[in-house]
């Protein structure tokens, strides 16, 4: 039986061998055929030599989260060959270089071998050994085009586009591709029963990584200062900001730049620059990952107390040091939400898609100005660094930036006494002034804690307490302003909570659970502190699951703490192995809970109620 547009293909390569561009072209070609795809780059902390994998989920139905089991393995790395073969599902395909015979111990009877003598094919054609290594990738790309029935014109067009400006590379690349393609057509059964065909399932969607989307959002949202320090997986966010600013933010007449980007000496300085710029009225942001959040912690606390707008994109990854940190995780919720000493709390936003990264890129700047506090956007490697299908971006040209409560010179003329930290409006947010605004009024000395509502120095306990209580009121205001949770509720007994990239495999997991008689209402959390809709959803469900990608159920901690819940009321569904959570994991853990606790499933419920 032939299946179309529904498989997982994984490329196992050696880092630095030039495979990334070939694999990227593969995914993009399917996307251009109108087939929904999601890419996952699983890479080491290394420039050259260590194993790397690139996975493409192809799904006509639009299931773009990860699922376990590889249908087609393109095994190009001798070092990982054994484990790569082991990961293929029964009935799947191994595409490999059979220039040398496959060792008997690698053989599996339950998979199909697709041998292509890649090394032998390139050897006579490309005398330069460096080229030979690079073109091996293009040869398997050509072979796959025949095996999977990929539109060859599209893929050829991509090669031409890829090497535009280096035109001398186009012909040899196409030649290499044709080598692989003709070999497959001549000697192998083409196409395979797993193949692709043109579709209109992509619609007008775009394919972009979350970091680029966030950077473009920050440009649209009016960020003018970006300070950052290189750290995977956040680096590409700052680099994308620079790249897109160069096109979108340069004065067409003078060539002057309407932005400033500083690659700082470390994350402390990056956050200090953001805070200095925010204090002085420029919209500013930084991007980092877990270790950077740790370093920024002191400054985050200062900005919380001094009430300075700042935006921080945390592209989360696994724990400290090097190695696993190039794998994805949702592990920084607790360290970000309460970063710093003293009583501090920071609003968080949780984007799930590139489109949401774009929107939050701008919205976070508004929110930071409105609340006069750091806003932390919790993305992760999975979303930030992989190409994802996304609704196209749109911008409402009538939208004005919400700069929050900032007094102008004219405003100050009418003010008898300026009181920076006085809660005039009852929302816990005072009015601020920018340096240099007025000759006589509005200047104040910004400090952390020791001040009264007029920003006058004091260490009196009653002033400290009053200020801290006002900050709680501001927290209540934040509860209304952070993005609302997205809820699908049909009055079911059980529900599942999730956020960020855990959304990607969710629909697939829910559909599989429904087949097993488990139907769940869903709530995708998008902001912290939690709004009323979150409490209502929790209160109205007897059984609650919470799926997330860390060991300690960090979102659960936030919920239990913020909403004063019984910890036993939430059942964690967890994955923290470094890949993104799969539909299989969610499905299995939820089902296990039902089975283990003898909970009735749909058919049984029907019997009881009818």
């Amino acid at each position, binding site marked *: 039986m032939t299946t179309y547009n529904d498989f997982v293909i994984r490329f196992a390569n050696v880092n630095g061998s030039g495979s990334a561009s070939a694999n990227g072209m593969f995914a993009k070609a399917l996307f251009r055929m109108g087939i929904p795809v999601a890419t996952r780059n699983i890479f080491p902390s290394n420039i050259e030599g260590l194993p790397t994998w690139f996975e493409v989920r192809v799904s006509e139905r639009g299931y773009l989260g990860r699922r376990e089991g590889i249908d087609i393995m393109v095994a190009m790395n001798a070092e990982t060959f054994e484990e790569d073969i082991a990961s293929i599902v029964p009935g799947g395909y191994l595409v490999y270089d059979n220039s040398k015979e496959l060792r008997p111990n690698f053989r599996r009877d339950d998979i199909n071998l697709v041998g292509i003598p890649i090394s032998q094919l390139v050897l006579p054609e490309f005398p330069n050994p460096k080229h030979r290594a690079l073109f091996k990738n293009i040869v398997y790309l050509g072979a796959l085009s025949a095996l999977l029935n990929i539109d060859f014109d599209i893929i050829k067009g991509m090669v031409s586009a890829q090497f535009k400006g280096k035109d001398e590379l186009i012909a040899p690349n196409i030649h290499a591709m044709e080598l692989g393609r003709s070999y497959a057509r001549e000697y192998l059964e083409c196409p395979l029963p797993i193949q692709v065909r043109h579709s209109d399932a992509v619609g007008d969607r775009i394919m972009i990584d979350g970091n680029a989307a966030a950077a473009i959002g920050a440009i649209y949202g*009016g960020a003018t200062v970006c300070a950052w320090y290189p750290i995977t997986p956040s680096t590409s966010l700052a680099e994308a900001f620079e790249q897109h600013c160069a096109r979108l*933010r340069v004065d067409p007449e*003078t060539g*002057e730049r309407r932005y400033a980007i500083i690659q700082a*000496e470390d994350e402390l300085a990056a956050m200090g620059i953001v805070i200095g710029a925010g204090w002085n009225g420029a919209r500013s942001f930084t991007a980092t990952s877990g270790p950077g959040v740790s370093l920024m912690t002191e400054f985050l606390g200062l900005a919380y107390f001094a009430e300075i707008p700042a935006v921080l994109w945390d592209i989360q990854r696994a724990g400290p040091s090097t190695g696993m940190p190039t794998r994805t995780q949702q592990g920084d919720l607790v360290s970000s939400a309460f970063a710093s000493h003293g009583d501090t709390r920071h609003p968080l936003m949780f984007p799930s898609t590139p489109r949401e990264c774009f929107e939050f890129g701008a919205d976070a700047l508004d929110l930071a100005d409105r609340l006069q506090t750091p806003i932390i956007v919790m993305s992760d490697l999975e979303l930030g660094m992989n190409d994802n299908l996304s609704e196209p971006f749109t911008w409402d*040209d009538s939208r004005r930036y919400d700069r929050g409560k900032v007094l102008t010179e004219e405003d100050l003329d009418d003010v008898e006494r300026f009181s920076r930290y006085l809660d005039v409006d009852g929302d816990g947010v005072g009015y601020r002034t920018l*340096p240099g605004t007025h000759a006589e009024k509005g200047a104040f000395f910004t400090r952390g804690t020791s001040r009264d509502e007029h920003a006058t120095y004091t260490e009196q306990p009653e002033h400290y307490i009053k200020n801290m209580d006002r900050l709680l009121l501001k927290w209540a205001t934040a509860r209304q302003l952070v993005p609302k949770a997205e809820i699908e509720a049909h009055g079911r007994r059980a529900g599942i909570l999730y956020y960020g990239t855990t959304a990607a495999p969710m629909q697939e997991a829910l559909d599989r659970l429904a087949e097993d008689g488990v139907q769940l209402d869903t709530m995708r959390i998008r902001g912290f502190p939690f709004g009323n809709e979150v409490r209502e959803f929790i209160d109205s469900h007897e059984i609650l699951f919470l799926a997330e990608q860390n060991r300690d159920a960090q979102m659960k901690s936030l919920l239990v703490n913020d909403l004063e819940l019984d910890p036993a009321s939430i059942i964690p569904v967890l994955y923290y192995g470094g890949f993104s959570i799969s539909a299989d994991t969610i499905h299995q853990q939820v089902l296990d809970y039902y089975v283990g606790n003898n909970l009735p499933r749909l058919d049984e419920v029907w019997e009881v109620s009818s």
Partner: protein
Amino acid sequence: MTFVAKPRTHHPLLQVNDLGLTRRDYEGSVSTLCAGCGHDSVSAAVVQACAELALPPHKFAKVSGIGCSSKTPSYFLGNSHGFNSVHGRMPSVATGANLANRELYCIGVSGDGDSASIGIGQFAHIVRRRINMLYLVDNNGTYGLTKGQFSATNDRGSTSKKGVPNLYEPIDMISMALQIGASFVARSFSGDKRQLVPLIKAGLLHEGFAFIDVISPCVAFNNHNGSTKSYDYIRAHSGSVVDADLIAPHDEITVDYDPGASEDVDMPDGSTLRLRKLAHDYNPHDRVAALHYVQRAQEEGEFVTGLLYVDPTASDCHEILGTTQTPLNALGEDELCPGNAALEGVNASFR
């Protein structure tokens, strides 16, 4: 500790500057530092310099870290915003503040603990970035607020109040600043207002990173016989190589100096910076020679003071980055948001 506002009555004979303001209009709140603290003299010098230059007293961004020195921005320019930030991290806050609004005068005040120990990384990098600001270090060789520990600028062999010698080599911030790109480098002494005030004026008007290391004795912990940063020691062991006078645009230059011993530098606001060379063989435009001179003197236990290096043509961070002349914090949607039509192009590039 409480905040005390100074009474705003003026002595009728106080001099009035071009803005119709007196020195009192440039003051801040009453200092809470120890009586006799060198830092208060530095604050007073800032007040005098700004008043004499007739700069608008609200057009400053004052930033500091943590420590005795970092409290001082409260004590001058009370009509300007100040930011008492995080220990050792003033340079990054100053960088952000300057990026946001290039039109404000930016004054950073730090100490030797703040800038030479915890903040030495940020100090080095703000010098490299050439932020257009005046960076003052009130250098007393000791941690005052935590009661007298040695700082990294304390000389080896110089003792604590109890007579315990410092065992480690000092960090010389002048040499660091010279080495990594400061375009204005000076050293002065809080007890020498005649030298310090013109240096502050010149530093404020200099377009680029201006660094002044001000030896500012700590009367509580480091003003005793064993200290190399006491009032007595500094008076006995310091000498100026180049003094600076700032001559306002409309003031006539009346005094003639030996031409070989003086040099005029045009300042961006039309005033003239007159350099008076007290050491005839000294060239304040030769970075490497300045470094050599300063370090040689230090070997001999002497502090070289004065305007040690100036490059009036050096670019600042905004020039390096090519940012627009309009302050970034004054740009609105029209200048910043490319609009929905451009977004369609962006979308198309991702298909």
